[in-house]
């Protein structure tokens, strides 16, 4: 059972005080020219240096370390020269949750969350017989004899069924890629900055029908780091503190490999549960979200999140996607850095950094004016997690 009293004791007690990212377009250009000058740890080190500088803390202040999924904790500690008293390994959202719990419990005071990935220059395969993630998601590789592998193909199956049930059109779905590209064009650190309209989208080739090239995330190298500490300590630092106000999580694993939660339920029960918890803990609802970040390895994640978390009614996301409301100047800005589709594919870590930048008012041309609350929604194969952040009062 959700114990709201215990959850609420955590609300606004932990802050993000530093963010750092690598230079995505420059690294992408180098990778395309065949240069290999960094590995995952190199990107991680660059991001960590920048996050540390951003926070105003010293390296000796950091007593906790969470390594991203592509990094080994021991090697990361060795590379960064850090002997900490608490360490763990996690994906983007779980990294924040674990760090928050560690700080709240007092097993660490300042935790560095560090991600690095050389997936492009290192040649990570997201499709084919050895598709990435098969060791954690059996469905990614189990159906190889029928030519079905990869996360993308499974989301294409979902999109096929979802379009049949809700009437979502390919043109409407194109609204996701178009809105995020419009944001990417305002972000100097986004990889894809050429104009993209819905006709360009529809002219894009299918990868796994009905998903096209522009429905798929980029594959690029880079790193992201965040520094998490107590709200009290954050007040003594130079940057405006960003407080963690809500955490929601719900898994949908029953019959995951046979795809029932994906194709029959669109993961809605898990989304509803996570939504209920995150909003209850933060004491607010979807209408109060100023900026939304959605994990988008594929465009179809966006309508699922909008419906699952109550930004619109079930089956009605199509209109919202094609309305322009998700893009710059819109009513509900989504993936304001360009997301995974046009910004940078940092497996959700870039979305976390963007939540912080928007709340600090540091997002440049893509800044959503007066943003006070941001939400991140991540649903990877039915593991739904959401975080809500608020700007601390000055």
């Amino acid at each position: 059972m959700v114990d709201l009293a215990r959850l609420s004791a955590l609300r606004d007690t932990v802050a993000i005080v530093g963010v750092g990212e690598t230079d995505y377009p420059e690294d992408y250009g180098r990778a395309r020219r065949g240069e290999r000058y960094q590995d995952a740890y190199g990107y991680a080190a660059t991001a960590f240096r920048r996050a540390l500088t951003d926070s105003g803390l010293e390296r000796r202040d950091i007593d906790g370390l969470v390594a991203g999924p592509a990094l080994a904790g021991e090697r990361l500690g060795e590379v960064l020269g850090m002997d900490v008293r608490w360490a763990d390994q996690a994906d983007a959202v779980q990294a924040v949750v674990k760090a928050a719990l560690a700080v709240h419990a007092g097993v660490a005071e300042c935790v560095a969350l560090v991600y690095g990935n050389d997936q492009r220059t290192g040649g990570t395969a997201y499709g084919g017989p050895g598709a990435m993630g098969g060791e954690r998601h059996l469905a990614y590789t189990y159906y190889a004899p029928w030519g079905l592998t990869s996360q993308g193909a499974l989301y294409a199956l979902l999109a096929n069924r979802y379009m049949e049930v809700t009437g979502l059109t390919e043109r409407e779905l194109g609204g996701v890629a178009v809105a995020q590209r419009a944001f990417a064009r305002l972000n100097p650190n986004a990889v894809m900055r050429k104009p993209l309209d819905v006709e360009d989208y529809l002219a894009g080739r299918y990868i796994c029908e009905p998903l096209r090239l522009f429905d798929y995330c980029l594959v690029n190298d880079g790193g992201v780091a965040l520094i998490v500490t107590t709200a009290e300590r954050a007040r003594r630092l130079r940057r405006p503190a960003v407080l963690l106000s809500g955490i929601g999580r719900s898994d949908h694993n029953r019959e995951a490999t046979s795809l029932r939660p994906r194709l029959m339920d669109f993961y809605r029960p898990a989304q509803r549960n996570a939504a209920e918890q995150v909003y209850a803990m933060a004491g607010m609802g979807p209408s109060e979200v100023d900026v939304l970040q959605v994990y988008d390895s594929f465009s179809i994640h966006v309508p699922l999140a909008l419906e699952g978390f109550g930004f619109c009614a079930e089956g009605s996301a199509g209109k919202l996607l094609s309305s322009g409301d998700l893009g710059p100047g819109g009513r509900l800005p989504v993936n304001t850095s360009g997301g995974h589709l046009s910004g940078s594919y940092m497996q959700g870590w870039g979305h976390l950094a963007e939540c912080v930048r928007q709340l600090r008012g540091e997002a440049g041309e893509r800044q959503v004016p007066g943003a006070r609350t941001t939400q991140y929604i991540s649903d990877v194969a039915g593991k739904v997690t959401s975080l809500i952040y608020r700007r601390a009062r000055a």
Partner: protein
Amino acid sequence: MTTTPRPAPQRGIFDEPYWRYAAAGELRLQRCSACGSFRYPPGPACPDCLAEEHEWTALSGRGSLLAWTVFHRQYFPGIPVPYAVAAVRTAEGPILIGNIAGTAVGDLIHGMPLTAVFEDVTTTDGPLRICQWTRLGPSSTLEEQE
């Protein structure tokens, strides 16, 4: 009989009976002896009641088309694109994955009735008989489609 080499299946210890029955042209799934629930993919315990005991129960081979995707990017040298992969809701409940034989991709319709057929293929680990699906209709027998 095709000579196209397909990727070999991932075989855990609980998968062996499935493939042994498939080789004999039978579609059988693990079914809980205690509560009757199907278990797919095969596994060590019933997700409904946690019992270990099970039987390998024959399915009727009837199903309907739940969803499909058409691969346009070639991920496997042995499978030329475009090709469709379907999720089939069996009459007994479990959802199975297969290719659709004898129906053009453009003629696929959600909910269309399907029946299981077995196809002999060559995989990277040698010959294999796999369960596929074909449209179920009065004029649609296997012989006509081959």
